[in-house]
């Protein structure tokens, strides 16, 4: 676990991530304080049960962005500065090496997500929503599955693609995955080639939103769909497989 520990220590030292997290916290606080108000059918949304899922979604998109930012350069950096040479010659397998680096990416991404998520819990505490607080930890575990998948996907893709291409691909993966239901709706509106295109995206990109929304469902007392959570874990598993399959030819 030494590789993971060092990669994690390196992440913590990157100051740009603190800036991203600060921005995230600011947005979450704005959503919750009412500085940015939302209205549905002309009715402004103030109820905790109504605000919470919205904020959770904002967090998940931010968390996904942070996950990409944190995970994109970790593995390429190792190869560029040739730290990989000293690892490879010691007989450490690529899977073990990349796996530990990817794990560091996941831990740091989920950690950043937790900082944002803590905002929701503080908001719940202020509103006296003790029931929500009690479910906070299991809900976070569900909530973090998609962010972990985005981080893992980014790590895997960064093995074989140049940074810019990997970044664009991962951002597209994250956005399309998080906005899966929106794309489903769009696919019903548009027609012709656009429809086929949207349907193809829906087919290729997994529904990251489904798992995330179960966390909001758990917090707000709605029905939690195990299928969606398992789907999220399956995506995580497939991303893990991708990391296993994709290899560097050179150290």
């Amino acid at each position, binding site marked *: 676990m030494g590789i993971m520990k060092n990669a994690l220590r390196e992440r913590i030292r990157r100051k740009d991530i603190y800036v991203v997290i600060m921005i995230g916290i600011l947005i979450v606080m704005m959503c919750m304080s009412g500085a940015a108000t939302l209205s549905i059918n002309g009715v402004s949304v103030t109820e905790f049960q109504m605000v919470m899922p919205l904020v959770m979604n*904002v967090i998940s998109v931010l968390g996904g962005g942070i996950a990409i930012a944190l995970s994109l350069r970790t593995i390429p950096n190792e190869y560029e500065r040739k730290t990989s040479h000293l690892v490879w010659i010691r007989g450490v397998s690529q899977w073990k090496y990349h796996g530990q680096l990817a794990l560091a990416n996941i831990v740091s991404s989920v950690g950043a997500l937790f900082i944002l998520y803590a905002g929701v819990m503080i908001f719940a505490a202020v509103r006296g929503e003790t029931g929500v607080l009690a479910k906070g930890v299991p809900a976070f575990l569900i909530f973090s599955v998609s962010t972990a998948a985005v981080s893992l996907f980014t790590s895997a893709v960064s093995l074989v693609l140049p940074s810019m291409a990997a970044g664009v691909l991962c951002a597209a993966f994250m956005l399309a995955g998080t906005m899966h239901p*929106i794309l489903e*709706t769009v696919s019903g509106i548009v027609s012709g080639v656009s429809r086929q295109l949207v349907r193809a995206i829906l087919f290729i990109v997994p529904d990251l939103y489904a798992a995330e929304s179960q966390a*909001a469902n758990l917090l707000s007392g709605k029905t939690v*769909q*195990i299928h969606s959570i398992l789907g999220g874990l*399956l995506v995580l598993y497939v991303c893990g497989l991708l990391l296993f399959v994709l290899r560097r030819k050179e150290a």
Partner: protein
Amino acid sequence: MKKTKTVLSGKQLLCKGAAVLSGAALLAGWILTGNTGIASEDKKIYEEAASLQPVVDEIGFQDFKLEDYPVAMYDGKHDYVFYNGEIEKREPVLETFAGTAYPVGDHFEVIIPTMKRFESLLSLAGGVEGMASGSGYGEEEQTATIWHEAFHAWQLSSHQIMGERMTPEDFTEDMETASGQAGETEEDFFKKEVDQKKDVKKELEQEMRLLKKIVTGSAMEKGKIDEVRNAVLEYRKLEDGRREKMTQEAADAERRCELTEGTAYYVEGIVLKAEKGSDKGGQTYKERYLETLDKYEDGRGKYYRIGMAKCLILDQLSPDWKETMDFSKSLDEMLDEAVSAVK
């Protein structure tokens, strides 16, 4: 000297085996928990809606039963039709993004997106912020929407709306004609005839404020019928005055929309209140329905509220109004009759 060969140790083999097994278990679990048909959430919603029949019976509309109307839930690929205790899967009749009462063959059905689809609709409407499972629209709201649309199915199936009977065939024919033309929707019509005419809009806003005042005021609460009656007379005067500035067609469209949507909205509100339970239900009903009665919304939306306010006033002035309700008269006519009756 030897060339290096990769040989897997027992531990590595064990790890790989465990990884493959857990992947297989995950996949199997995912497949087994997946719904090849309608989601359990949607089934639960329908069951919940059906269980609220006694609440709706208590409202008083005669012979209005949910079980009389097939409820089709559209998941983006198929319709799942709940009827006679069974769920039938079929090709979608209407790729809808909102609940509606719709002609299917010789009858009207409730067609509603599944909960998942409804959420995506809301997310589309609300942008990034609205990418929420909630947006305040949950299972309880979906249940209330089923009742709202079922009420429309009942209106269309069993009644002449202000003297005009619309059979499923007429309805279908109308839609086919409209689809061939760049016709104006009712929404556009109201925007043109009401919302874009400053004086008409201003007066309508004033009327809505007065209606809200009547409904939420102390006179209604304390049962001061005379005060309510006088306030209604004042309202009716304002309303008639405004409608004189409008075309007959627009005024009739207003009356029709208030009647059909106002009553459905009224039923929806009561269902949601019952669904959410005594304390929370009352609070939600107050926040979402009563406190927004004067909320002006372009298009048809405002008439839901105006119509509902009129229903609530009728509850006070003529508590039995629903028993004989046949939609032949406008809510204004019914209000006028109720006011005359309490002289």
